[in-house]
């Protein structure tokens, strides 16, 4: 029974063996445990012949295998155990795995040229001083058997998972409970996660062919059961679990029970020769990997628009970047895109890759890009958007300050429209209707982000470690708002480093003709509810400063803010209102054109917009009068010009 926090920690004390030598356990056979799982693997994957059970102890598995028709041969260094096994009519030899040198030859002697179906090592490898040497000897044995005309044997191992959730959660709390047996058996010399299991076996040429891991929701380390981080439904417990669930599927694995076979391959002739693991990405960035990967989505149908986005990228002051152009289209779209890329300078071309996407949904295309990216950081620039020359550099500066955080700059919005056919000078160029409007705050506010996204796709760079370590992806279930969901999830894990610079301009197309698949449809109430319900499903970890924000939202306490704060809140609101007015005016004029200017209602509405615009300017002036901060004094001359001009404009109209 697991103890509780109020009891003394008896389990951790080892009374059975004080001489420091490894005791031989007498575990009973169970089909639910690693023995039963190992027998399944042998039955499913091994051919007929000897099953060699190394480190067999009292051979709990011996009779089961013999009764199932296998020729059982045990091996252990404990002479008492070997005698016990032999007395039960099973073949057993004294074999010390700790003395690994010449092990393959010794085993070959024991086997006397019999065919070997499987070599099994159940909960043994973690006790070895040099597991690599033993696995290498077994690889040699496998090759030797093959040379002598036998089939290569199956290797079945059971290895405890030191990254089981119970153990990991307690370690976060500073607790590490070594026990007489179990996951943290005091005699374990080696600790394994799945990554180490794969790497130790993989580099010796053992290729996994089957697995039947032992799963325990509550391991032997699930004690004390009222440890604060083990409380089910507790925010910390649940948060740790949700992070871990994303990172790998092994949090409930007690033992990795897996079967391997060594493939006869000339490159593996020397089992001691380390070989490159296939999982190079897990090692982190290579020396020649770029600092930043830029993902650019295109339909391949508007080459001149794409060329402008690429021009912005070619002009970046940070040159240590790769650009991956993701084409959501057919072969001709890809060819057209390649043509655009080829028209650039050779130096830039060498940093651009063009990739065709098979699944062109919004999230899937972004995820495909994440898989292709090699940079330490990843940023996004869709073909509709434009960036300044310091866009990438500001990301790099932010990342250098706090490596691993999401880096965020400010994205301005401007409204453009597609040219009418009679506007001959325009070609495919967009007609710009507004100056860049600063809609989004210079600082990331996670609480405000729960209501609305103020970090468009082109305004952040994410550390690729989120992808490699936590398998972060855009949610492919979401039809839209996947960037919002992604930024918020990432921000709540690694936090956000604001650069404070405006480095990107998002172009909003006023007329529907300009709408593209890469442009997000509006976030409707249903979608907002959908995204919020996802965040409701798990605990939220908010950064420092959130308590006061939340308390203010409750309405129980007043704002208590400075004029400065009010000003920064007012400015985006005013700009937002102006943006809406410009859009409304554009839409109305569009409608008016179509109706041939016959509708008096439209004229009334245009007049109304005029009035609203005047009111917005008035509000701006009132706001300026409110603010007497240092900033406002310093920028007085600049504002004077603006006021002067506005004054002129007003008197013109009245």
């Amino acid at each position, binding site marked *: 029974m697991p103890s509780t926090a109020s009891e003394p920690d008896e389990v951790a004390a080892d009374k059975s063996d004080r001489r420091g030598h490894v005791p031989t356990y007498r575990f009973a056979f169970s089909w639910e445990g690693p023995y039963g799982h190992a027998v399944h693997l042998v039955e499913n994957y091994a051919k007929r012949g000897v099953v060699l059970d190394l480190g067999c102890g009292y051979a709990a598995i011996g009779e089961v295998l013999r009764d199932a028709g296998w020729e059982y041969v045990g091996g252990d260094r404990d002479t008492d155990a070997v005698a016990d096994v032999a007395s039960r009519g099973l073949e057993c030899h004294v074999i010390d795995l700790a003395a690994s040198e010449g092990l393959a030859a010794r085993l070959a002697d024991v086997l006397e040229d019999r065919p070997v179906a499987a070599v099994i090592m159940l909960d043994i490898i973690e006790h070895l001083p040099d597991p690599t040497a033993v696995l290498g000897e077994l690889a040699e044995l496998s090759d030797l058997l093959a040379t002598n005309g036998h089939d290569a044997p199956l290797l079945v191992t059971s290895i405890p998972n030191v990254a089981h959730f119970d153990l990991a959660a307690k370690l976060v709390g500073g607790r590490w409970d070594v026990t007489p047996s179990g996951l943290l058996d005091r005699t374990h010399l080696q600790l394994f996660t799945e990554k180490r299991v794969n790497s130790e076996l993989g580099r010796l040429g053992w290729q996994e062919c089957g697995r039947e891991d032992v799963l325990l929701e509550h391991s032997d380390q699930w004690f004390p059961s009222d440890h604060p981080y083990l409380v089910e439904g507790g925010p910390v417990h649940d948060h740790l679990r949700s992070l871990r669930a994303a990172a790998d599927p092994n949090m409930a694995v007690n033992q990795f029970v897996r079967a391997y076979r060594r493939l006869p391959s000339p490159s593996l002739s020397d089992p001691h020769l380390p070989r490159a693991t296939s999982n190079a990405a897990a090692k982190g960035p290579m020396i020649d990997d770029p600092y930043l990967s830029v993902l650019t989505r295109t339909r391949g149908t508007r080459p*001149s628009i794409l*060329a*402008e986005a690429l*021009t*912005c990228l*070619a*002009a970046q*002051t940070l*040159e240590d970047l790769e650009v991956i152009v993701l084409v959501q289209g057919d072969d001709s779209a890809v060819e057209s895109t390649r043509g*655009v890329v080829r*028209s*650039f*300078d*050779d*130096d*830039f071309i060498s940093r651009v890759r063009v990739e065709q996407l098979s699944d062109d949904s919004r999230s899937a295309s972004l995820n495909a890009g994440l898989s292709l990216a090699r940079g330490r950081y990843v940023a996004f620039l869709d073909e509709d958007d*434009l*960036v*300044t*020359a*310091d866009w990438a550099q500001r990301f790099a500066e932010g990342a250098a300050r706090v490596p691993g955080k999401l880096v965020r700059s*400010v994205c*301005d919005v401007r409204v453009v429209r597609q*040219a*009418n056919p*009679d*506007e*001959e*000078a*325009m*070609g*495919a*160029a967009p*007609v*710009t*209707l*507004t*100056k*860049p*409007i*600063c809609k989004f705050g*210079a600082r990331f506010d996670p609480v405000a982000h729960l209501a609305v996204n103020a970090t468009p796709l082109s305004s952040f760079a994410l550390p690729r470690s989120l992808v490699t370590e936590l398998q972060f992806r855009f949610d492919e279930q979401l039809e839209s708002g996947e960037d919002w969901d992604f930024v918020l999830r990432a921000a709540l894990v690694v936090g956000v480093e604001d650069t404070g*610079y*405006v*480095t*990107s*301009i998002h172009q909003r197309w006023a007329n529907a003709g300009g709408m593209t698949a890469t442009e997000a449809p509006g976030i409707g109430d249903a979608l907002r509810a959908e995204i919020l319900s996802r965040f409701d499903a798990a605990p939220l970890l908010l950064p420092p400063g959130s308590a006061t924000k939340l308390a203010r939202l409750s309405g129980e306490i007043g704002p208590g803010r400075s004029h400065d704060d009010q000003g920064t809140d007012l*400015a985006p609101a005013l700009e937002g209102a102006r943006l809406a007015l410009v859009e409304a005016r554009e839409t109305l004029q569009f409608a008016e054109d179509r109706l041939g200017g016959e509708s008096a209602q439209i004229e009334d509405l245009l007049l109304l917009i005029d009035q609203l615009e005047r009111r917005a300017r008035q509000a701006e002036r009132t706001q300026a009068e409110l603010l007497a901060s240092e900033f406002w004094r310093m920028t*007085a*001359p*600049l504002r*004077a*010009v603006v006021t*002067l*001009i506005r004054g*002129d*404009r007003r008197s013109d109209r009245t």
Partner: protein
Amino acid sequence: MATALRVQTVRYGGDAPDLLRMLRSVAAAARRLEAKATSSALTVAIGDCGAPEDPHAVLDEKLLTEARGILAKADLSLDYVAFMANVGHGAGQNLLAKRTSERRRPGDGKDVLILLNPDTYLSPDCLATLVAALEPESVGIAEARQIPLEHPKAFDPVTGDTPWASGCLMALRSSVFEALGGFDASFFLHGDDVDLSWRARLSGLRVRHVPRAAVFHDKRPTETGFPPPGDQEEFQAALARLLLAHRAERRDVIAGSLNWLDVHGSAHQREAGREFMRRLAEGALPTTYREALGVSPEAVASVACFHEGEYAEHRF
């Protein structure tokens, strides 16, 4: 007929990698020119004004070698001139243009000058589109569209006609540049492009904005949308306004500007006002458009626009 092309830029400080990037874009854009001339007729000229800290801090040989290598790939040659003094943008461009006309041989065909800021990157089709926009001959100057911050001045979306062309990237025939006498060197940095454009229009030529020719200009927006001017920029911009108003004989604009500078201007802007008055007293101001071009006051009034502190109506 072949088009001889000369791309001219005047450098004053700035990072070497930025300059090389610009040259790479010029080389790539030159490859896209439809009617490609012989290699000797494609030139990039760099006039070097040194750097703010030292007019003698000119480009070193290593950088020039790299620059030549980049241009050679597109059969472009480099014509590099170290002025050893900060002569200013307009005067620098004039000096560079003069070197072309001296070298030109009869029968070289249509010569086109591309005047370019060094803090730019050309989109691949930019040069070809701009050069093509110089047809018909009534078009005196063709101007590229700047990204990511588009210049807000008005233009006709059908014809592209615009009140003035920005010196960030403009194309014009050498013959036009010569006939206009190049830039007026009394403008040091700002307003020389407005002045050149107005003189072109007063001479009956069109100035055309070419939206399809995109050029990246390294301008960085602030939260208020426009990059804040530097000290030198404030001075030059204020002085340019006074000089333009003087040439257009707009005493009201001069008086209004001087008054505004006194009340609201920064130290640098007020200094510009004093500089203007000094030149006025010394008789060192440029001649008026009427005098210089022999045009009517009505013609000047129709071209010289002083609208809300700008030289054209703005679209946003």
